[in-house]
């Protein structure tokens, strides 16, 4: 049972290694030329006004929440779409049920006026 997780471990190591390797390569290859303008928020030359950390509207939160739901849904949809041809109608029906439930929630939120920007 534990041996089966060797693959996962290797996968994780390769994944982390890929990132580290590319960052290191970039560091070695790119020219090193720092100057203060590079650190300003807008490189186009616009002078920033005020603080960057300001309170922003709580209404974003509900959009973020709905976004997360559909973000996770996509995680399920991708593997499903790959093997759909082999699994056939059964998998299709199951996914439709799953989607109907999500849409039920979305429609509820929509009808409640959550998506309207007041």
């Amino acid at each position: 049972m534990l041996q089966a997780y060797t693959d996962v471990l290797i996968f994780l190591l390769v994944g982390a290694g890929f990132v580290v390797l590319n960052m290191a390569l970039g560091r070695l290859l790119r020219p090193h030329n720092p100057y203060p303008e590079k650190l300003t928020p807008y490189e186009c030359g616009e002078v920033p006004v005020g603080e960057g950390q300001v309170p922003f509207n709580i209404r974003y939160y509900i959009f973020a929440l709905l976004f997360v739901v559909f973000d996770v849904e996509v995680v399920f949809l991708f593997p499903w779409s790959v093997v759909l041809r082999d699994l056939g109608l059964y998998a299709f029906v199951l996914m439709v049920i799953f989607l109907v439930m999500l849409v039920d929630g979305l429609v509820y939120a929509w009808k409640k006026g959550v998506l309207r920007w007041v």
Partner: protein
Amino acid sequence: MPLDGDVGLLLPEIIVTLAAVVALATGLRPQAGRAPAVWAFLGVTAAALLLLIGEGRGQAVEIWSGTVLVDGFARLFKLVFLVIAGLTVLVAADYVRRRGIPPGEFYLLLLLATVGMMFMAGSLNLLTIYLGLECLSLASYSLSGLLRRDARSTEAALKYILIGAISSGTILFGMSLVFGATGSLHLGEVSQAVSSATGMTPVLLAGMMFLVVGLGVKMAAVPFHMWAPDVYDGAPAPVAAFLITGSEAAAFAAALRIFLVGLPSLRAEWTAVFVTLAVITMTFGNISAIVQTRIRRLLAYSAVAQAGYVMVGLAIASDAAVSAMLYYLIAYAFTTIGAFTVVILLARHQPADEIQDFRGLGQRAPLFALALTIFMLSFIGIPPTAGFFGKFYLFQAAVGAGMPWLAVIMVINGIISIPYYWGVVRTMYLSEAEDRSPLEAPWGLRWATVIGLGATLVLGLFPDALVRVVNAIQVVPGLPIAF
């Protein structure tokens, strides 16, 4: 085609989920009226009937690569959860409309919490149990905060989600340690791995303790009970009744499976822990309840104390103790929901937070006052009520397991609890009310009281039928390991 008889065994869960979705959809219309409540009630009733008369009774079947188990234990607990959910719908129908709670959301969350509980009882796989627990927990956090303009409700939801998240993490950590020590998430295989291993590994012991603590939070066992009084006092009243009965029973169901099926080799260790927790819990709960002046805080501390009694059964864990636990949980569910119904009824007409508000209820609503009196008798454990036999079987199990001192502590606790339960009854009958107008009850509350009262009395007068049922329940299913 993987579509086979397996799905049929999960039909009750599927029906409840569908009812939840439909209830949400019908709650959309501006004039939703009773529709969401009716759909929720129909779904729960259909699922319960299906469990009673449906296929596969009397056998234990493990499906979906050992992630779901359907056996007598699971079926009984699912039935209990469905009855609790059904009674909660009856109690809540009027409350939800009057307090302006969005009905669609309320019934969706209530039914999803029920589905979560059903999966907690219906699996030997630690991950499925955890998913069920999360489904229950997330729904109950939201349910406790549904009175959005009420400060107490918001506070309850916040406290519950913070402590609940920690307890979920603790449980998950415990499960991962058990998995690390045994290499399996299936409790049957965990048990085999533990018994074949030489000696007891510290990792496994640590995992066991994490599980005890995490589930202890859900059971509201002292010292992990800090959330319970605030949540049971602040959450919408029907939700509080649902959580005290359902959530607690689900935690005990999961604990029975995890410790009896998965970790029987560590029995000496977890028995010691649970005996200690049980004694602390019941004593602390009863003593704290004495000084309460708010009725729902009193019921909350009483719930803590009752959890202590039930935990005695978990600690002894003999066949007799498990039967006694099941009996107690069922009896307690009816009694608690009944008691909350009377609280909700009074709260329709006036503020009913304080025990003092129950003055003169004996004159204003004789039937409901009598019902509450009987529920209080059942909480204390005086015949002819269900609570008496619940406690009696637990005493018997304690004595039978060679722990008579535990029974003595339970009796002492029973005596400590008499004054505060009886105080409520005294207030109802011996104090005069300023407002003597009779209370009118909507039919949902009336039926919930009648069912609670009927069950409390029937279980107290004719305990044999239910005893036969619970005696036939096996926590450890006699089935071969699936893979």
